[in-house]
């Protein structure tokens, strides 16, 4: 699958990555090559094969609804880039 420059821009936007103009071409080529490589998968006949999401055929364990977590805000926020009054701060969100 050969990707276009536009594809790269779209993917970067989805992934919230900034790809500079001078990098676009390199990404286009590398990603196209990788996609081309993984298309080997088309050799396999996968009709009627159940997709496998987990290595183990297990079911979800369920947790009892009891509060065991305590307030560790100070510990968690001392590693945060910006906080005030117990809130995490980010540049203004405009809806």
């Amino acid at each position: 699958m050969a990707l276009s420059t536009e594809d790269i821009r779209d993917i970067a936007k989805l992934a919230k990555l900034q790809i500079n103009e001078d990098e676009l071409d390199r990404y286009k080529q590398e990603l196209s090559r990788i996609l081309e490589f993984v298309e080997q998968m088309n050799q396999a006949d996968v009709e009627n094969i159940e997709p496998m999401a987990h290595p183990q055929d297990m079911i979800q364990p369920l947790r009892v609804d009891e509060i065991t977590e305590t307030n560790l805000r100070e510990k968690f926020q001392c590693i945060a880039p910006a906080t005030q009054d117990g809130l995490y701060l980010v540049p203004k969100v405009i809806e």
Partner: protein
Amino acid sequence: MHKLTVAQQAKALAAKEFSSEELVNHYIQRIESHDEQLNSFVTFTPEQAIENAKQADVRGKQGGILNGIPIALKDIFCTDGVKTSCASRMLDNFIAPYDAAVVTKLNQAGAVSLGKTNMDEFAMGSSSESSFYGVVKNPWDTERVPGGSSGGSAAAVAARLAPASMGTDTGGSIRQPAAFCGITGLKPTYGRVSRYGMIAYASSLDQGGSFGITSEDCAYMLQAIAGHDARDSTSVDQPVPDYVAGLNRSIKGLRIGLPEEFFQEGLDAGIAEKIQQACDVLKSLGCEIKPISLPNAKLAIAAYYVIAPAECSSNLSRFDGVRYGYRCENPKGLEDMYLRSRSEGLGEEVKRRIMVGAYALSAGYYDAYYLKAQKIRRLISEDYRAAFNQVDAVLSPTTPTTAFKVNEKSNDPITMYLSDIYTIGVNLAGLPGISLPVGFQQNLPVGMQLVSNYFEEQTLLNLGHQYQQQTDHHLQMPKEFE
């Protein structure tokens, strides 16, 4: 002291031949004098190590299976109060506020951490060249890579800067560096070891495991880290056998399969020869060697490079500069903060995989890439299932070549990906695998991989131990580091 294995050190500590403090001090000195050549540690915690060694000495016989034994941890395991970077600029300032399950278990077993080891950024790589903290070197030849992604943990044990270490394996990240560095590396069954606190790369493939000089040492480590953890929904609630006790069982009559697909083009002739010799040793111990087939094995890398990037593209979304980690200088707005924090904080290979993954999951491409990869994953898994109806273990080289040179493959992602051809299918299926040193090819170590059925780690450790009773490849160490 550093030539002793974990098992030997444990006995010596018990017999009070030396104290843990002395042992730990010895390794601290070795790291201080030798690691500059290797760059295997990213965070070195000597004061804490000595403090913990003293406590281990006080515990004495009351301590756990690894009481007083120094170890190193891949910098992917969260350690409370210690920087946990995943070798990324993104987490260069991240002091983990909690312990990973594996770290808690190792502490309970009495192990003493020397520090955190270097790796490929976020475990994405096969050479340990993509670290924000620089390339890790192979102790056997410092112009060569130690393999990856757990390259720092492997190099440290190979150079005897730690007697054992912890790594993680998503597509071969324990077994391949173990092979390149001439040591033993065990990737347990998916679900055998809790993933809680292990920074996720590809959640359905990641599994923590260990490096040691011997198979016996890997048994000691697994004994400490294995077991159910309610905080990891994919952790399996199964009893943990006595791995150490199982080492001395006879391996007579065990059936070993050689997948024909793994002995074809692309395999170095010298490596093939070493593998043949190792087979002969196993045969002499009563194992039955027979050919098998893993017909879909050739598709493993392709499926892997869809599934792993897809999961990683989502797993690494949490690195957004909001709650922890890197935030760019003076963001102009929210979008600018996201874009620049992530682009400046994450390295090339990581970004590449995130992009591939985002694409493979995007509208219109999901079926052609992600869903197809999950179906191929089933085919590969079924191949192994069929194989284990005939044999007890599957044997192959761990890697198609010995350690390659620094920068040799770093500009060519696909060639790099291909170095995991023998290991990747094991992760897709979730099976346990071990890499054992089986000799040298032009002075570089060669590794052999054994794979067993789910939760049959003891078969691998048993085979490894019996093989190592007959050989001394695993005891070789690089001259510069003696």
